[in-house]
């Protein structure tokens, strides 16, 4: 039985249910959201159909500019930290025996599937005064008395790196596993130390993968909505937090929707960039 184009309406049968579900519950809600972003807000949490740009005009305020700038800066920092930590780790991981690799992968998947709520709770406990790291430092005499290490920028960054690191490793993993092992062997035979070989051979060979991974982790980090809230102060809130806040607590759906549309545009632009880099990589 060869693959063939559908002959009759009945051949399209299997497509009806999935297509319907995706259209009704993803495309239509998405469209609704775009529509609402142009609606007029009314006092008391309601909104009326209209076609105004006032929700988008609010982007031009200094406050919004600050939040946007901070979100982008935070996501870039998280992406760089993650890739720097994950690259040598994933390489070493790919050299392990299969059994050990599977054990690490199960652990990484388990951490990756953790809810942001749980990650936020775990780190807020670890950084707290009563149960945290600082107690350990007191025990070994480095600190006079326990202190709370959050809320702070460092706490937000640590939490987000924790959240994104397993993701980064799993994105890098296939590319590094498929890398030609003779490449590194050649470098070693020619007298290069493992660390030099890593930087002079492996990193350049993976240049496109690294760029694409940076962008993917950046998008992943942009989506973080709870960690800045749990581990940071209001000045550490990101665009995702602001969208949730406007939608749920300020009941300003049109403004929340406008910010969401903006976030989608930023993300899609970056996905397009990733694909472009990927294509370039194939040609090279």
């Amino acid at each position, binding site marked *: *039985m060869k693959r063939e184009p559908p002959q009759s309406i009945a051949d399209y049968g299997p497509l009806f*249910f*999935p297509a319907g579900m*995706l259209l009704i519950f993803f495309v239509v*809600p998405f469209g609704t959201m775009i529509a609402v972003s142009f609606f007029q807000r009314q006092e008391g949490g309601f909104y009326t159909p209209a076609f105004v740009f006032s929700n988008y005009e609010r982007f031009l305020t200094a406050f919004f500019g600050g939040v946007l700038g901070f979100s982008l800066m935070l996501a870039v920092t998280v992406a760089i930290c993650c890739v720097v930590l994950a690259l040598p780790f994933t390489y070493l991981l790919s050299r392990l025996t299969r059994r050990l690799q*599977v054990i690490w992968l199960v652990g990484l*998947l388990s951490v990756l599937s953790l*809810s942001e709520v749980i990650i936020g709770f775990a780190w807020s406990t670890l950084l707290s005064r009563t149960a945290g790291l600082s107690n350990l430092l007191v025990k070994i005499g480095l600190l006079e008395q326990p202190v709370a290490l959050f809320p702070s920028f460092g706490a937000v960054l640590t939490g987000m790196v924790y959240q994104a690191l397993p993701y980064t490793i799993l994105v890098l993993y296939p590319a590094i596993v498929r890398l030609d092992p003779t490449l590194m062997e050649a470098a070693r035979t020619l007298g290069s130390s493992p660390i030099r070989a890593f930087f002079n051979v492996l990193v350049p060979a993976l240049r496109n993968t690294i760029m694409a991974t940076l962008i993917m982790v950046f998008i992943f980090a942009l989506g973080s909505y709870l960690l800045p809230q749990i581990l940071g102060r209001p000045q550490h809130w990101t665009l995702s937090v602001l969208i949730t806040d406007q939608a749920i607590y300020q009941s300003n759906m049109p403004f929340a929707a406008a910010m969401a549309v903006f*976030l989608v545009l930023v993300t899609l632009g970056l996905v397009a960039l990733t694909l472009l880099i990927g294509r370039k990589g194939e040609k090279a």
Partner: protein
Amino acid sequence: MTHWLKRFYFLLIGLFLSLPLIVVAGVSVNAKQTLAFPPQGFSLSWYGEIFTNPEWRAALVASVILATTSAALAVLIALPLSWFLWRRIAPWANIFQVLGIAPFTLPPVITALGLLTFWATTGFYGQPWTAVIGHAIFFVTLPLVTLSLGFSAIDRSFVEAAATMGANDRTIFRTVVLPLILPYLVSGYAFAFVLSLNEYIVAYMTVGFTLETLPIKIFNALRYGYTPTMASVTILFVFTAAVIFSLVAKFGDLPKLLGAMASDES
């Protein structure tokens, strides 16, 4: 020297990933209602609390029902779609593959807000079943990716042999295709199940005020009063995820599954 450096690096990353969980595990066995570490006294009563305290038990039941049904619905959406794309030449139908992967690729807030406006507009906002549909759409990516991988691994000559012997599509699907893709189907379900169990924002935006799932319950407890039960639930979650992924690894090829998954997503 480099050998020790390697060991040290593995230890460092392992410690970073497990330290928060170790502290939470410590907190979860406190004898009294304190969030102290190292724990004061030892008691497993906070694990019992998940099942005996009516509020936590209700949240657990809600989460498990939501995860079981939404993962099933995600598989029901993904299976016919990936079968169709494998069986037929219809390039335009790939748009649905893209639509299936989009919700998971975009920041989760987007999907959540889209569903919130949609349910609010249609008047179903707050109904428990809306969260099932929301999660199914949000996580349909996972079975979709594992199933496309499964279909691409099928040797088409098996199918041709069956067709030559006179089997129709239905028989071929039941006797040849289904047994071959079953491992991918199960792992797709497992991934969607675990992630749905942990999901917060979509559930919160669709049914947050009417139904408390475990992540929502933990978040509310985080705001309005700490209890070591939060810690015991966390450990239960990590344990569940580890068991499920170990089973996937035992019965399937985890490195292969992940290798192809990540390359499909990028």
